[in-house]
Structures are given as structure tokens and as C-alpha cells.
């Protein structure tokens, strides 16, 4: 260490450092133009001149390249230094009178006008660019010429190949003399950010996206100069912790595994090739993925909806569906991408939310395919409530408008009427495709691919490939949305898990949980974390003011706000802050504790706190989302909610959790395809199953089905499945049996089965609900009145029976959406379009001369089912669209049925003759309210059970230990039912395999001293948790068994002596909240 005096103050620097470096360390400002941290100093601009006193005399030196020595005295701001700098600046200003940085510096030193003759230059010849170019390992430029002719230039003023246009020179030039555009002769594009779909730039060193795990920057070797020349490494001079290691190599890691799950996903279709859409040439034609980024709070425009060309808010946006899907002409993608209709509707609705209601959104479509759970309602709302326009036509081309950034769309309606409209923006709803790399991987692994390059699997084992032990899930196994991908992911895990049952728990890694800090007796130190949730909260509530307000509340030691409090990086930061600030209570003001409390509690545990010293308050679902028209009041409410939460949190105490054994047996309710597969999968994972079926036979609806959409015969596979279940010693089958009663809770259920009037009670740890659906009985189209009108299942039975009458049919008409997508049942039954098409093809095969009509509203042959639709049209099946308010009319007569339907193309009714009418009847729920009550599981308006989370928890209930699959969840075909049955089991096994569960610490506790032995709590508790103490000093007083207590607090509220308290919701805590309202 070298000590010396800097402006009279003793400072320390390291041997070999220069004065400027030490001065910067101590915050002493010295002006400089030619200094760069990563480069050897050159003393070119002379601005950093300082006075050095060596004990005898003073000297003027350039501080950037004058090494320090012991005992020296440095003065950076003396009169002499200032006047020297003034002269330098005056000369620089005369040379470069228009350079902002020099003008500013000159002004700071009191110079308005130079005394010297002004020139018109902008280079100060500091040579920073030359040194930087050398550092890049190139030395393409140098200071050439002598004296007044000196300039920065390439040798002989020629364009040189040595220059790679990296732009390092331009990036360090203090005056802006060097511009990268001048070097390359073209406009410079930033490296497109992959995450922001190229709408934003990124650097060669970058964090892929804000929530990336791990949240560490990476170096893009294809762009980094060091990997081209061996030079640069400037970044290492800036990294304070020496974390950058350019010598890191890709590693090949070999793993020994028993099973492989392929989840490589999809690639969004690139519409560049579609010249007629002007995607690559017109900035306002964007893909749906780009539009997602524009709508996102973390996107390039921070969620502000503007169009790319001029950043103006669009007034009219068009979505073009099926770009890269259902198109053999341009892109060889014959399949439907399944998700685009729904995401386009979602984008239109959100765009309207972001802009104002006047935003005009139009979706150009062929068929709207909202076949997912609750999607049809969303579609109805988009059209009815939000006013999104739906135009039924495929737009082949869009036109640019000269002198305008708008886009013209000419289209023809179904009735042949031409039309044109101008839009501010066009969104291309691009499809999903398998990337060529994945295709190559699949080939290498011997995975068979379909026509659309998706993994080929069977309906009865939808995630298993032809290679034993290799499973697939997600969009690689066919285009699909999030819930279906999540289902398949769990399903693949179940398949792999069954294969690896014998190896279970042999490679377990224990999570390292830090020891819990004892906070008893400490004064509360509350940390408040306020979440912006992107723009969900931050767009309305003034989050910084809520944060500042929180900081003023009693016991609050720390308050901050985050863009997303739940993201991985925020969580790590929260744990760090808890430790740093020694917090002992945490309040998060964000979304709902129902979904996010466990996540934050885990962070508390990671930070060494008990998970119960945490309180969450809901300023999103119950504040920003519901008070959109009054931001000030929403902010005031958010402050109140935070104040209440802090008041409660200050009174919180650490709680202990009891452990509970999980009964290793399972109950499966319903023995259709889903129930059978669930039972079989559970058994193959080593668990005992009781399979309960209310009817006399196993198989459910599948007993009436003929073929799957992939052409597999259902009966053969079903018989095999039933046989394997019946012969499985680990599965007890109860036919003709109903559930009489269910008691208990996760891990310890007791269920009474009733068969033939006799009861039997079984015990089980988990339950899978697979109660299925049934065919709706139509009350229209002469169904039940004329035997020639049949339903899907009835027609399938005819196919199964090889009914000879089918061969004699000359005209058949299928009517779609019978009972579905109507006000009474506003959902799509998902399977009927494919089923009708399949049956139509079957009829054509039986008798090629038959005429088949399908009367439909939208054909929903999603995914690769689209091929069937194509095949049917090729085989001559005639499709006629009808509208809900102009339903077909069926009349009967001796010589056949007559169906009247309005043909949309000619706008007139046509009469079809038929000797068979097949109704695509809806799938309805059996509405088992009792079952819902038994297991405390919710049911939606349509009678289907409501899963824990529509996207991320489709196969489980919010009620612990109860799982869901098949048509009890929503109408679905066999392959999807099988996948969900396996998924439900996979979720159940995560519980069963643990063998023990922890019971919440939020339980009632008795203070026996206060107890008056009245017994109200014992009588009132629905879980039999309280009882009388049998011996000891408090004999006869009440006590609560924490394992049985569910923490409802009923006993606490009814205790007349005040002896009971509910931990986590204590009387003092609730009173504190009431106090703060």
C-alpha cells in the first residue's frame, strides 16, 4: 500500500496505480476525456492535469498516467490547475465548437467563447479509439499524419478488412466523431433480443430475460469480440468480483438414466417467406409472439400498446388466423396449431384493456376453435362484452399504403361480398412447428414422427413412443396449449415413474434447510415487499407511494417494491434482505395467498425464519383489478391493506407443524377409461387401489365407441385394459357401488361404500375422481320421435354391430353442436367435430356412393385431427355452415327425412334429403353434487369439477389429496383422458411417496387454566379435534389434537371462557387488523 496526500487528506493506493485511479476511488473528481478503465492511460487530452508536490517543488502532471508514490502530495483543484485546464478547454472548444461534452466542460470552467479562431472539427485526437481498437486485437486505425494534419484514420485512408465493424471505437469516442454507421455504410441493427422477439436489442453479454434461472449473465460467443480476435476482455475490468471466465468450455456431461422424457417444445412459425403478408418489410405487421411482448409489462414498450413504425397507439388492429397452420399451399403444415384462435382472442381482449374501449380489434378466421375448458365463454365475452369483431374469411394478402404506415386488407365475405378495411397494425397468428433440430434428434433416437413432424404416439399410451422408456410431452407430441401440456408432462412423469418404481428414493438429495432462527422475545422487525405484478398492480396503484407509506408504519424496518415479487431473482433478493436487515416478520402485498403464500413461505424458511411469521395482503385481485376506474382510491385501499397486514404481522409468532402418516392406499371413483387407467397406473407404481364403479360393468362411455381419431379400434384396447385391471391383485373392484359417506382428510380418508344395501368402509390416503360425463339426450331435430335420427354413440354402436343397414344409406346428414355452444350450455364438447368427421369417413368407406353432409358452426378438428377434415373433404363429404339463430330444421316423411338449412354462400335455404341424421350431441356432466360435498371439491356452472389451477394444476383439486381426470374435468377424447388419468396419478404419487405430510401449524390451542370444561368445543368441532384431558392437573379441561385440527376456529369463536386461541389467526391479531381499518 502506498499512502500519500490527496488535497490534504491522507489516502491509500496500491503499488503501480495512477493518481486518477486513487482519486476516483476516493470520489475526488478529476475531468478527463481520454481515460478508460480497461486501457493503459496515454495522457492525451491533458485535462486531468494535477499539481504534485514532492517536498521541494510542484509539478504539473497528467493524473491518468502518473504513478503514485509514498509521501507525495497531490492537489487536484488549485488555482494553477484550474487555469491550466481552462487553457486546454479553450483550445479544445476552438477546435470542436459544437461538441456537447466539450461545451459543457468549458462552461463548467467559465468559458463561453474561445479567444482563438474557431474550427469545425469534432475529433480531439485523444487516441482513445486507437487504443481501444488495439485492445480489440485489431489495430485497424491509428493517428496518422503529423502536426496540424494529424487525424484518426486507416492506413492510406482505405477501407480495411482488418476492421470488423465491432464498433468499440465508436462506443468510447468521447465527442461522437466516430460513428459506426460511417464505418459500415449502413444503419446499425442491435443484436436482436431473442426474448423480446427482436423488438428490442441486447448486448453480447446479457441475461436472457429478467426471470431467467439462474439469473446470471451469459456471453454470446458468436458475437463477443474476444472469441473472434482473442482481444478485448474489457468486461473483466468492470466485473467487481472477477466472475468472468472466457476460458470456460462447453462440457459434455454423461448421465446414466432409466428413462428419458422428451419435452423440446415447438418453434413459432416464421412468416418471413409469406411475401404477401409483408411481414419482413412492413414494421406494423407483427407476429402474435411479438404482439405478446408488446403487451407485456416487461416487454420492449413496458406494456404500452404502440405500433412499431411510429410508436403511435393503434386505433385498429387485425389478426389473421392460420398463418403457418392449415396450409399445405405455402408451408406444408396441414395441421391446426390448436392454440392460435384462443391466444388471438386473448390478445384482442387484453389489447382492448390496455388501450381504451375504442380500440377496434378484428379477427379474420376460418373456424374459431375455442374447444378448451371455459374457452367458449371467453369467446362469447370477447364478442359480446368486449366487442371484438370476428370475420369469417381467410385473408390471402395484405397491402401496403403509399405514404402511410397503415395496412389495407381486402377480403371477401362468405356470401361473396367484397370488402376492404385499413388497419394500423396487423398481427399474424402464427402456428406451432417442430424445429428441424428436434426432428433430427427424434430421428437419432428412433422416434417415429407424424406427417406434421410431431412425435407419433397411440391414443391408449399418449406419451409413450415406440422406443421403450422414452416418453414425450407437450407440443412435440402435437400442437397443444398449456393445460394439456402440463397434463402430458405429469403423464410422462407417471410412465417414467412406473418404469423406475424399484429405483424410487435411491438417488434422493435432501434440501439443505438452514437452521431456524429463534425470534422469541425479539422486538418485531417487519419487512414489507410491495409487488407491481408488471402492470397488473403497478399500472393502477401507485406502488412507490405504498412502499414509502409502509416504511413509516410501526415496526417496519424495511420496505421495497418489485416488478414481480414472485420471480426467482426477487425471491433470492428477499432471502438476502431478511438476513441482512435481520427481519423477523415479513409482509408481502401482492396477489392472493391462495396461490402464492407457499412460495413466499419457502423463501422465509430459506432465510432461516419460521414460515408462519408471514402475512400476505391482496392488492391485486381484491384491489387493482376491481377498482380500475379509481386509481387514487385503489392506492388508498392498498395502503390500508398494508397497514392492516403489518399490524397483524407484528403479533405473529413462529408455529410448529405436526406430521401425519399418509395411508398408502388409493381410491378411484369411476371405472371408465380414465378410472381404469388411473387404477392401473397407481398399481404399477406399487399402490393398492379400490376402484369403485356405480354401474355393473367397467369401461364407461368407451364401451360404445367405435374408433379413435387415429383409427385405433377402441373395443380391443378397452378389453385389454379391463382385463389387466381385473387380473391385477393390487386392485379391488367394486361394481354396482356408490359412495355413502366420506370422512377424513388428506392421507387419512375413510369412505363408506354402498352396494346392494350393504355398507363397507375402506381407508385410503388419496382419491382420484374419474366420474366422467355422459351424452346429452337431444330434445330437437326429431330425436326420439324418428328412429332415423340417432346420436353419435348410437351410430357408433351400429358401426360396432356391423349393422347392414348402414351400407344401404344413400344420404346421411350430421348436425353439429346439438346442445353445445348454446345459451343453456355455453361450452364446446370438444370431441364431436372430429367424431362426426370420422363417422362420415367411415360411412363413405362402407358405401362410396353415399352422400354425406356435415352441418356445422365451426369445425374444431384441432391439432392433427385436421387431416381427417381434409380427408373427409377429399372423399366428398359436404360441409355446410349454419348460424346459431338459423338452426337446421328436420322434418320426417315416408320417403326420408328432410333437413332445411340456410346455405351461407348463396344466402338461401337448401333442402337436404337423408335416411340417416346423426346428432353430435353434447357431453354433459352427471352433476354428482353429493360427491362434490363428500370431498369438498368445487363444480362449475356446467357441472364439471374445478381443478386447482386452470393452467398449472389441471389434474388436482385445491383440496389436498383429491385428484381429477377425464371427462369429470371437461369433455375430452380418449387420448387426453388417458393422459390426464396418468397425470392425476403422477400428482397423487408425489404425495403418497412422501409417506408423511406435515399438518398446518394454524391450529387451535387451549389454555387449560382458563377452560371451564363446558364442552362446547368438543361438541362443535366437525373434526373431533378437541377432547377432555383424562389425567393430570387439568383433568376434565379441554385439549386440541393438532393433527386432527383443521384450523377453522369454530371452537375458538364459541369458547365462552376465552380459553381457546387459533394460532396464526389469533384474537389479538384479528383485533389488530380491525383496529387499523
Amino acid at each position, binding site marked *: 500500500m502506498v499512502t500519500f496526500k490527496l488535497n490534504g487528506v491522507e489516502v491509500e493506493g496500491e503499488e503501480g496505480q495512477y493518481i486518477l485511479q486513487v482519486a476516483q476511488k476516493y470520489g475526488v473528481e478529476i475531468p478527463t476525456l481520454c481515460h478508460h478503465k480497461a486501457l493503459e492511460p496515454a495522457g492525451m487530452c491533458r485535462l486531468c492535469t494535477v499539481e504534485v508536490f514532492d517536498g521541494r517543488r510542484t509539478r504539473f502532471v497528467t493524473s491518468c498516467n502518473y504513478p503514485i508514490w509514498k509521501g507525495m502530495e497531490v492537489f487536484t483543484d488549485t488555482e494553477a490547475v484550474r487555469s491550466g485546464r481552462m487553457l486546454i478547454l479553450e483550445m479544445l472548444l476552438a477546435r470542436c465548437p459544437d461538441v456537447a461534452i466539450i461545451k459543457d466542460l468549458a462552461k463548467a470552467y467559465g468559458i463561453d467563447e474561445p479567444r482563438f479562431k474557431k474550427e469545425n472539427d469534432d475529433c480531439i485526437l485523444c487516441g482513445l479509439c486507437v487504443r481501444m481498437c488495439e485492445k480489440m486485437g485489431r489495430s485497424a486505425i491509428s493517428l496518422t499524419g503529423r502536426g496540424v494534419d494529424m487525424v484518426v484514420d486507416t492506413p492510406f485512408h482505405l477501407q480495411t478488412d482488418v476492421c470488423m465493424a465491432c464498433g468499440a471505437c465508436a462506443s468510447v469516442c468521447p465527442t461522437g466523431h466516430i460513428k459506426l454507421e460511417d464505418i459500415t455504410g449502413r444503419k446499425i441493427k442491435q443484436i436482436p433480443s431473442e426474448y423480446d422477439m427482436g423488438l428490442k436489442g441486447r448486448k453480447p453479454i446479457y441475461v436472457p430475460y429478467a426471470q431467467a434461472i439462474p439469473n446470471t449473465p451469459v456471453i454470446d460467443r458468436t458475437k463477443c469480440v474476444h472469441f473472434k480476435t482473442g482481444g478485448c476482455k474489457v468486461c473483466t475490468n468492470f466485473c467487481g468480483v472477477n466472475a468472468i471466465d472466457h476460458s470456460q468450455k462447453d462440457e459434455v456431461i454423461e448421465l446414466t438414466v432409466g428413462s428419458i422424457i422428451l419435452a423440446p417444445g415447438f418453434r413459432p412459425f416464421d412468416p418471413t417467406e409469406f411475401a404477401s403478408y409483408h411481414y419482413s418489410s412492413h414494421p406494423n405487421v407483427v407476429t402474435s409472439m411479438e404482439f405478446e411482448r408488446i403487451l407485456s409489462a416487461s416487454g420492449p414498450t413496458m406494456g404500452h400498446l404502440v405500433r412499431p413504425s411510429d410508436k403511435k397507439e393503434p386505433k385498429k388492429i387485425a389478426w389473421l388466423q392460420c398463418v403457418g397452420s392449415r396450409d399445405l399451399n405455402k408451408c406444408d403444415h396441414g395441421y391446426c396449431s390448436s392454440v392460435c384462435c384462443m391466444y388471438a382472442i386473448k390478445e384482442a381482449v387484453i389489447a382492448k*384493456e390496455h388501450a381504451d374501449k375504442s380500440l377496434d380489434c378484428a379477427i379474420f378466421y376460418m373456424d374459431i376453435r375455442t374447444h378448451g375448458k371455459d374457452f367458449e365463454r371467453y369467446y362469447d365475452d370477447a364478442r359480446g362484452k368486449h366487442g371484438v369483431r370476428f370475420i369469417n374469411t381467410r385473408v390471402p394478402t395484405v397491402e401496403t399504403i403509399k405514404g402511410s404506415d397503415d395496412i389495407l386488407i381486402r377480403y371477401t365475405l362468405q356470401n361473396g361480398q367484397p370488402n376492404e378495411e385499413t388497419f394500423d397494425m396487423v398481427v399474424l397468428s402464427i402456428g406451432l412447428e417442430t424445429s428441424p433440430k428436434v426432428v433430427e434428434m427424434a430421428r437419432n433416437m428412433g422416434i417415429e414422427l407424424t406427417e406434421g413432424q410431431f412425435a407419433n404416439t397411440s391414443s391408449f399410451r399418449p406419451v409413450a413412443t415406440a422406443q421403450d422408456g422414452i416418453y414425450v410431452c407437450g407440443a412435440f407430441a402435437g400442437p397443444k396449449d398449456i393445460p394439456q401440456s402440463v397434463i402430458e408432462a405429469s403423464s410422462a412423469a407417471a410412465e417414467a415413474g412406473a418404469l423406475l418404481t424399484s429405483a424410487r428414493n435411491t438417488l434422493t438429495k435432501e434440501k439443505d434447510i438452514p437452521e431456524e432462527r429463534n425470534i422469541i422475545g425479539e422486538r418485531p422487525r417487519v419487512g414489507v415487499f410491495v409487488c407491481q405484478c408488471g402492470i397488473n398492480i403497478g399500472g393502477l396503484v401507485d406502488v412507490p407511494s405504498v412502499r414509502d407509506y409502509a416504511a413509516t408504519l410501526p415496526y417496519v424496518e424495511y420496505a421495497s417494491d418489485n416488478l414481480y415479487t414472485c420471480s426467482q431473482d426477487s425471491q433470492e433478493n428477499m432471502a438476502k434482505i431478511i438476513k441482512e436487515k435481520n427481519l423477523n416478520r415479513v409482509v408481502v402485498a401482492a396477489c*392472493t*395467498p*391462495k396461490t402464492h403464500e407457499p412460495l413466499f413461505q419457502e423463501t422465509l424458511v430459506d432465510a432461516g425464519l419460521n414460515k408462519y411469521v408471514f402475512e400476505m395482503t*391482496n392488492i*391485486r*385481485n*381484491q*384491489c387493482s*383489478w*376491481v*377498482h*380500475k*376506474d*379509481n386509481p387514487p*382510491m*385503489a392506492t*388508498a*385501499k392498498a395502503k*390500508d*391493506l398494508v397497514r*392492516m397486514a403489518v399490524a397483524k404481522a407484528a403479533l405473529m409468532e413462529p408455529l410448529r407443524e405436526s406430521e401425519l402418516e399418509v395411508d398408502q392406499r388409493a381410491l378411484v371413483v369411476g371405472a371408465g377409461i380414465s378410472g381404469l387407467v388411473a387404477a392401473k397406473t397407481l398399481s404399477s407404481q406399487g399402490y393398492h387401489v379400490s376402484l369403485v364403479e356405480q354401474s355393473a360393468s367397467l369401461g364407461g362411455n368407451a364401451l360404445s365407441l367405435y374408433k379413435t381419431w387415429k383409427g385405433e379400434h377402441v373395443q380391443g384396447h378397452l378389453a385389454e385394459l379391463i382385463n389387466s385391471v381385473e387380473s391385477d391383485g393390487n386392485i379391488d373392484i367394486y361394481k354396482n357401488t356408490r359412495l355413502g359417506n366420506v370422512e377424513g382428510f388428506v392421507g387419512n380418508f375413510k369412505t363408506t361404500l354402498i352396494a346392494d344395501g350393504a355398507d363397507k368402509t375402506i381407508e385410503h390416503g388419496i382419491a382420484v375422481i374419474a366420474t366422467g360425463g355422459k351424452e346429452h339426450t337431444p330434445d330437437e331435430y326429431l330425436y326420439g320421435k324418428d328412429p332415423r335420427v340417432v346420436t353419435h354413440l348410437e351410430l357408433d354402436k351400429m358401426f360396432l354391430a356391423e349393422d347392414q343397414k348402414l351400407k344401404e344409406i344413400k344420404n346421411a346428414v350430421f348436425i353439429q353442436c346439438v346442445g353445445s355452444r348454446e345459451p343453456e350450455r355455453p361450452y364446446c364438447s370438444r370431441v364431436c367435430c372430429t367424431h362426426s368427421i370420422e363417422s362420415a369417413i367411415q360411412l363413405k368407406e362402407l358405401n362410396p356412393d353415399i352422400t354425406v353432409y356435415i352441418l356445422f358452426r365451426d369445425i374444431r378438428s384441432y391439432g392433427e385431427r385436421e387431416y381427417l377434415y381434409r380427408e373427409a373433404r377429399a372423399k366428398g363429404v359436404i360441409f355446410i355452415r349454419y348460424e346459431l339463430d338459423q338452426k337446421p330444421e328436420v322434418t320426417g316423411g315416408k320417403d326420408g327425412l328432410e333437413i332445411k338449412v340456410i346455405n351461407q354462400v348463396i344466402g338461401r335455404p337448401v333442402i337436404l334429403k337423408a335416411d340417416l341424421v346423426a346428432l353430435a350431441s353434447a357431453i354433459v356432466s352427471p352433476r354428482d353434487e353429493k360427491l362434490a360435498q363428500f370431498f369438498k371439491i368445487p363444480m362449475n356452472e356446467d357441472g364439471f369439477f374445478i381443478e386447482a389451477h386452470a393452467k398449472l394444476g389441471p389434474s388436482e383439486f385445491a383440496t389436498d389429496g383429491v385428484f381429477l381426470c377425464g371427462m369429470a374435468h371437461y369433455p375430452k377424447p380418449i387420448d387426453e383422458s388417458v393422459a390426464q388419468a396418468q397425470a392425476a396419478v403422477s400428482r397423487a404419487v408425489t404425495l403418497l411417496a412422501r409417506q408423511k405430510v406435515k399438518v398446518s401449524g*394454524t391450529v387451535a390451542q387451549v389454555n387449560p387454566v382458563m377452560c371451564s370444561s363446558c364442552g362446547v368445543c368438543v361438541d362443535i368441532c366437525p373434526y373431533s379435534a378437541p377432547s377432555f384431558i383424562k389425567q393430570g392437573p387439568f383433568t376434565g379441561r379441554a385439549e386440541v389434537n393438532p393433527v386432527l385440527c383443521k*384450523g*377453522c*376456529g*369454530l371452537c*375458538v*369463536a*364459541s369458547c365462552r371462557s376465552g380459553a381457546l386461541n*387459533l394460532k*396464526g*389467526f389469533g*384474537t389479538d391479531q*384479528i*383485533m389488530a*387488523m*380491525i*383496529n387499523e*381499518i
Partner: protein
Amino acid sequence: MSDWEPKITTFLCHWCSYGAADLAGVSRLQYPHNFRVIRVPCSGRVSPKFILAAFRHGADGVWVSG
């Protein structure tokens, strides 16, 4: 008097009504801002004392839902 807004204290059961309030948010249903929610594990937890305390602290109405 015309500007007067009542202050309402609300006790919502974590398992049902609190979830319903969340769902109202998800569905973007808009409603007046002048009530404050206290989440309880069950409406059975709400002791008459809480209701009286809410009135004592200036609430104009108390809503227990579960």
C-alpha cells in the same frame, strides 16, 4: 351527506368467499372500494366480539361471508 360513503368491514372465509373475491378480480368485475377484507380461516372463526369491535372502530357495516 350526499358524498357520504359507508365504511364496511368484511370477514371472508379463506376457502370460499376469499377465493370468490379473488375470482371477481380475475374476472375484472368492478365494485366499490369502500370495504376492507379481513381473511379468516372459516366464517366460524368470526366471534361476535370482532363484529362489535369493528363497529366500535367506526365501521358502518360488517359483512361476514363464508
